[in-house]
């Protein structure tokens, strides 16, 4: 592994892995405590529509995915704030329609031969310098938002009714959390792929939730655990020539099982 670190693409992969892990630790915590896991899953899959649009129109894929994912997040926010009863149905709808748009547009693109699997299961070894800048920028934005609005976000997440009574703009923060989730999903797609995004946003968080008594410690612990899983997964995938995203997720899942067994025994 050590000699592998001298390659630039491995360095990029490690940095990307840690950045994405820290980000998904923070945002995953918010997603889990706000019970938005299904919503985030919907955004992740709908984001494939963005990949399709980007390939079809020739704009950078990162940009296309970002715009489309944020757009999907806004629709989700709008629908779920307005229509409390049929949330599941609408999320499922956006989930499926986004993917369908992506697939049709890829079909329609002449001479298309980009590796579809890399979007479904991630391509961390193909992370570029630009991707890293984007991830770092998102990380800074998230730290900034969390520092500035921690109390409001905590209040909205814990008890939205009371938060709205005390004058906090619940819809704004709800939408903000969804938009940040969308951006997180976009970068996590690079690392673990859109199918496995949800595992990265939930497994480390589940463990952290049981170890922490406040939201920010949950975020920190999640970030740390996710980084650990990512590095170990990356190392295994390099050593045994396995798909990195799937390896990271299996490392996470096995650790979760171990954690649950230890918890049971205690």
């Amino acid at each position, binding site marked *: 592994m050590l000699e592998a670190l001298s390659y630039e693409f491995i360095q990029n992969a490690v940095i990307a892995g840690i950045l994405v892990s820290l980000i998904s630790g923070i945002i995953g915590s918010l997603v889990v*405590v706000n019970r938005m896991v299904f919503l985030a899953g919907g955004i992740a899959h709908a984001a494939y529509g963005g990949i399709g649009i980007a390939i079809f129109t020739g704009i950078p894929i990162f940009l296309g995915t970002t715009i489309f994912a944020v757009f999907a997040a806004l629709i989700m926010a709008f629908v779920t704030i307005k229509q409390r009863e049929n949330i599941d149905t609408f999320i499922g709808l956006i989930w499926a329609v986004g993917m369908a748009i992506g697939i049709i547009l890829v079909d329609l693109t002449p001479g298309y031969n980009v590796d579809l699997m890399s979007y479904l299961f991630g391509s961390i070894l193909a992370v570029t310098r630009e991707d890293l800048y984007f991830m770092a920028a998102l990380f800074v934005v998230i730290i900034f938002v969390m*520092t500035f609005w921690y109390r409001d976000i905590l*209040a909205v997440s*814990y*008890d939205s009714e*009371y938060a709205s009574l005390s004058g906090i703009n619940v819809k704004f923060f709800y939408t903000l959390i969804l938009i940040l989730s969308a951006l997180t999903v976009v970068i996590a797609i690079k690392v673990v792929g859109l199918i496995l995004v949800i595992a990265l946003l939930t497994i480390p968080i589940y463990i952290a*939730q049981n170890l922490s*008594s406040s939201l920010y410690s*949950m975020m920190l612990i999640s970030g740390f655990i996710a980084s650990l899983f990512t590095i170990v997964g990356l190392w295994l995938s390099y050593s045994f020539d396995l798909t990195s995203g799937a390896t990271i997720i299996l490392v996470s899942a096995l650790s979760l099982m171990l954690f649950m067994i230890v918890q049971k025994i205690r």
Partner: protein
Amino acid sequence: MQTKFNQRVIEIENLSFAYDKEFVLEKINLIVDNRDFLVLIGPNGGGKSTLVKLILGINPIQSGSVKILNKPLHNSLSQIGYVPQNTNVNTNFPIKAIEVVMMGHHTHKRAIFGYKKEETEHAMHVLRQVGMEEFADKKIGSLSGGQRQRVMIARALCANPKILLLDEPTSSIDADGQKQIYELLRELNKKITVIVVSHDLSVVLQYATKVAHINKKLAFHDLSSVKKEFEMSSDTHVCEVELLQMLGKCKC
């Protein structure tokens, strides 16, 4: 003395409210004086929650008027400490008791990160008031129902309200815990007005000074007379149904 003993803290006049076309509340009149211990009772769907939402300014006022501390209603959470129903939601949430309490602060100047020292101190102070000081750093989910309700009361007290409004405060708490909550409310009632929405008459009547029965219309009772009547008519057991009927019927 800054406050007259009988200062009106809430004044409701001719208040009506309808969802769609069906009236839920009709021409309600209610005056709450300073340091009353008022209990709002009534059947489910009788309009108790609607009245609470109107007092808190969650529902818009359609006709009639609500004055809080002699001022027309606006966002009143700074004057009314509110303890919502159902504190069992989200018990797995990673939040400490003191953080829950600090949700009750209404300060505009805030620390950039975390909480100011005064805010933490004040939160500890209210936690002490409700007897939960030693649980400040405990995860809210690890507390019992009664302890959690005390934390919610502390949150409501955080902004130093003149009025404390509780919606079914003991609905999911065991008998011992219920008694403790009401003892606490009696203690708090020495300084502030307490309004409790409840259907659990037998407990509440020991503590209430006034009762309002709401079933679309409102019947109001000063308990000093009713209590006497009951002490005469029954030795030990008070039948809630009879009591409810009586409270619902007579217009005092």
